[in-house]
């Protein structure tokens, strides 16, 4: 894999919480334009990895290289500005803002004017058209004026994706985008991920192995903070270490 095709690479990434090693020497290479899945049993360190990649937590050791640039010491906001945008395992919306306002917050950051405290918020109407396009794309066009808190869980996740997409990220990190959803919603989100991945790279944590199998090009299996296996779904699912790690867990 030539380096220009690698959008994100970690070398020896580790995280220790007061003596407990949650992530241990992870070497990860995410190829540009692919959907890369990060799977593993509960507590494997997947969310911690995301927190390290986006600097929500400082790594104990190791380096993170994004588009050839070392971002190990950048701030979370700087990383987002470079086009590496994450979602959260627990749905992250702005609950008392409307669905439209949620998306607009992201557009506003990307396009400026967010420090202007002396101007009327009417200037933000310039973003409404783009916001509506994004809501259309995730099937929320009829909910634009609804406070986000009133949406169903599945629709909140869709709103999160629309908000993330508003930043036109190059690399999108999704933490369990379909967790806690009904079948219908799961399918809708899966289609959505497939669609948005056409123009960007997606790294996702996902427990639903059906989704992982059908969507991802590459899978990395994490267990107790370490990479257990990496490759296509076929090769990974036959790996005996992976089967052993999953046995006895609820996702076995």
């Amino acid at each position, binding site marked *: 894999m030539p380096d220009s095709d690698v959008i994100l690479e970690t070398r020896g990434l580790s995280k220790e919480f007061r003596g407990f090693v949650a992530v241990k020497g992870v070497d990860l290479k995410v190829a540009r334009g692919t959907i890369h899945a990060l799977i593993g049993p509960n507590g494997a360190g997947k969310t911690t990895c995301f927190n390290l990649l986006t600097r929500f937590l400082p790594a104990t050791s190791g380096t993170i290289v994004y588009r050839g640039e070392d971002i190990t010491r950048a701030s979370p906001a*700087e990383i987002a500005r470079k086009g590496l*945008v994450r979602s959260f395992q627990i749905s992250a919306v702005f*609950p*008392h803002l*409307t669905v439209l306002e949620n998306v607009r*917050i992201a557009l506003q950051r990307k396009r400026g004017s967010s420090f*202007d405290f002396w101007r009327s918020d009417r200037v933000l109407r310039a973003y409404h058209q783009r916001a509506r396009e994004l809501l259309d794309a995730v099937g929320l066009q009829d909910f634009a*004026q*609804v406070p986000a808190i009133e949406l169903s869980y599945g629709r909140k996740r869709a709103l999160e994706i629309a908000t993330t997409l508003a930043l036109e990220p190059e690399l999108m990190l999704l933490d369990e985008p379909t967790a806690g959803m009904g079948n219908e919603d799961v399918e809708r989100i899966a289609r959505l991920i497939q669609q948005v991945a056409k123009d960007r790279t997606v790294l996702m944590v996902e427990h639903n192995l059906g989704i992982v199998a059908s969507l991802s090009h590459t899978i990395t299996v994490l267990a107790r903070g370490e990479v257990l296996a990496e490759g296509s779904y076929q090769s990974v699912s036959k790996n005996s270490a992976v089967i052993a790690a999953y046995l006895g867990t609820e996702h076995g």
Partner: protein
Amino acid sequence: MSEASAAPAAELAPRSHRAPLAILVALVLVAPWVVYPVFVMKALCFALFACAFNLLLGYAGLLSFGHALFFGAASYATAHAALEWGWRPELCLVFGAAVAAVLGLATGLVAIRRQGIYFAMITLALAQMFFFFSLRAEFTGGENGIQGVPRGMMFGFLDLSRTYVMYYVVAAIFLLGFAILHRTVHSPFGQVLTAIRENEPRAISLGYKVNQYKLIAFVLSAGLAGLAGGTKALVFQLASLTDVHWNTSGEVILMTLIGGLGTIFGPIAGAVFMAALENYLAQLGSWVTVTEGAIFVFCVIAFRRGMFGELSRLLKRPL
């Protein structure tokens, strides 16, 4: 899971405050002819103070436990400039607000990196440091405060020693400060501030450098709290330790909570209510605080969202 039915794809619900704003202006203009002007002036100073405080707690989700620092420092600065340097009142007020804003910047830089209770504790600690500084420092007059502050001639022609002139100047300052806060809350900046209050990690993950926004809000809040404190010093011709006492920091929190946290008009109502309470309960002597406390407990239990929080729920519109 409950879900609202599809809303019409209209533009954003208009958040027009035209009617309540008109009522507010009318009340401010008429009040001194109905109630003692000095009482209304006091209420307006505290109302501006509470509104400035509300920008932080209500819209940015930051609980400052030391806002008396800005109110009191500006009160001293304004009084000192008027009495010792003989500056014109408008310059004294601007000076007071500027001093408060600079102290706000310094306090903000220290406090904003901390979250929740630590933020509150640092602001309280800094305010207490300033209290003891004021107690010892020469120019504050220690226990006596700065007395006999001249009100002076504003812009060279408004004689503030005349009660009604002073009143309408205070009213204009209050309305100006309120207008600034109203605009700030309903600005692109205010929108980001609300988002940070609602979900800070999410705002960060969208690339917002949240501390910069909090700091700007903090400086604005401190500056306007200072404008309120300086105005109070001119009205009462006095700057004293009461202005920097933690009790004042506590009162502004109560005013905001009673009036309605995160409502634009609530803190005004809360301030008027508290000022009235203090006035009418004055004969109770040291029991004022106890009665205030009891009333506060009652208010918190009876209307959890504060006066305007409840009202805004009844009317189904943001106030």
